[in-house]
């Protein structure tokens, strides 16, 4: 069971990284915003994980995104923070708060409404951290709120779209 979950996760991780590196890192939307599709892998990362695994995996995924955007440490910082709060966030959306078996946190598990809300939280946190850290490091004032809102919306739309695509592919195959 766990093995299937990990295989499913790794296939999706590979797809989103491939799309990120070869497609999405080259197209700016709504002016100059890059879609961070890699967040999808962080969103669906199975829960529960050993105490060190979630944080370390998130840090490495962020670092990989940093390498391909030539920004040092920005996504790594954001992804690590999200990995810290994510288990509590997922539990917030679960009716049954007892211990859960290892699951992928996708729309099939949470349901579209809850999953959408959960994704909205995650993409907002990511945009908030990414832009706040940049504004601290560069002292360029203003536009922080605009950047956070637009980036959140953009990532949300694409994460929901990729999930819809994955679900339809899985349904077809099963």
């Amino acid at each position, binding site marked *: 069971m766990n093995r299937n979950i990990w295989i499913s996760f790794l296939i999706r991780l590979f797809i989103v990284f491939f799309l990120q*590196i*070869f497609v999405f*890192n*080259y197209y*700016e939307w709504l*002016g*100059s*915003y*890059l879609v961070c599709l890699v967040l999808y892998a962080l969103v669906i990362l199975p829960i529960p994980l050993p*105490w*060190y695994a979630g*944080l*370390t995996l998130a*840090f490495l995924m*962020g*670092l990989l995104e*940093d*390498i*391909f*955007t*030539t*920004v*040092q*440490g*920005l996504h*790594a*910082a954001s992804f*690590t*923070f999200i990995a*810290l709060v994510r288990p509590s966030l997922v539990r917030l959306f679960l009716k049954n708060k007892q211990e859960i078996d290892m699951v992928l946190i996708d729309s099939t598990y949470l349901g579209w409404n809850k999953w959408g809300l959960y994704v909205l939280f995650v993409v907002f946190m990511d945009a908030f951290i990414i832009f706040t*850290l*940049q*504004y601290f*490091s*560069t*002292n*360029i004032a*203003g*536009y922080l709120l605009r950047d956070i809102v637009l980036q959140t919306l953009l990532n949300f739309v694409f994460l929901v779209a990729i999930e819809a695509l994955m679900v339809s592919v899985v349904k077809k195959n099963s």
Partner: protein
Amino acid sequence: MRNLWLILWRLKHIFLFLLLEAIALFMLYQNSLFQQTLFYNVFVGVDAKVSSIRKGIVGYFHLKKENELLRKENAYLHSLLKTSYVISYQATFVVNDTLYRQRYAYMPATVIKNTTQYKDNYIIIDKGKAQGVKEGFGVFSPEGVVGIVDHVTENYAVVRSFLHSKFIISAQIKGKPSVGNVTWSGKDFYTGYLHDIPLHIKPADGDTIITSPYSDIFPAGIFVGFIKKMEIDETNSFYRIEFRLAADFSNLSTVYVVTNLLKDEQEEIQQFQIENQ
């Protein structure tokens, strides 16, 4: 002691979180030469390889636009040739070739990676140490100024884009004597600011901003942008001019790396002047 250890063990994930965050923030804020060298040498090669593969595939779809730009630039360069001019002033003068020393050399390069989303944006080009590119060289596109080389690996160079919070070069309004500094606005990828233009200069909307002769990175006269808006700055002595960047950062492809062949000599004399002050 055992209880203390238990408490610490219970908080182990917080410690791991703090450690990873500290590493990430250190990378973000501590831009030391060692760290940049490590980062670029290890990772830029990987990123550049991936981008090159992609560029090889996608590049074909933009050939038409690219050719159009190069044709325009060719036409402009033809117009600068001596053969494009007739001598209207008939006074006798002596042409002495030794009078002219070449100051700038140009090398074409291809942009293989470009970001515009961040507050400190970088561009990767396909020329590096092996082709003679060094840190501090200027980079411009057929349309205008693009950036300054920040770091070079064997076959690639990382260019600090105009869209970087620490990018600043000397520039002037075409046809006006005063020189100021241009920076990126930070708002979007097509707006910049020209600072320190005194109030007695009367610029107009649409005026062209070009690099000034005082820059030791770019030759004079390279397009920087076109004036959009003007306001008087906090000191009440200068204009702060908002302009539209000449280079289209959403679609960079062919660029030129410019070398100031006299830069070392220029810096040497400046250093001499500083030491003797």
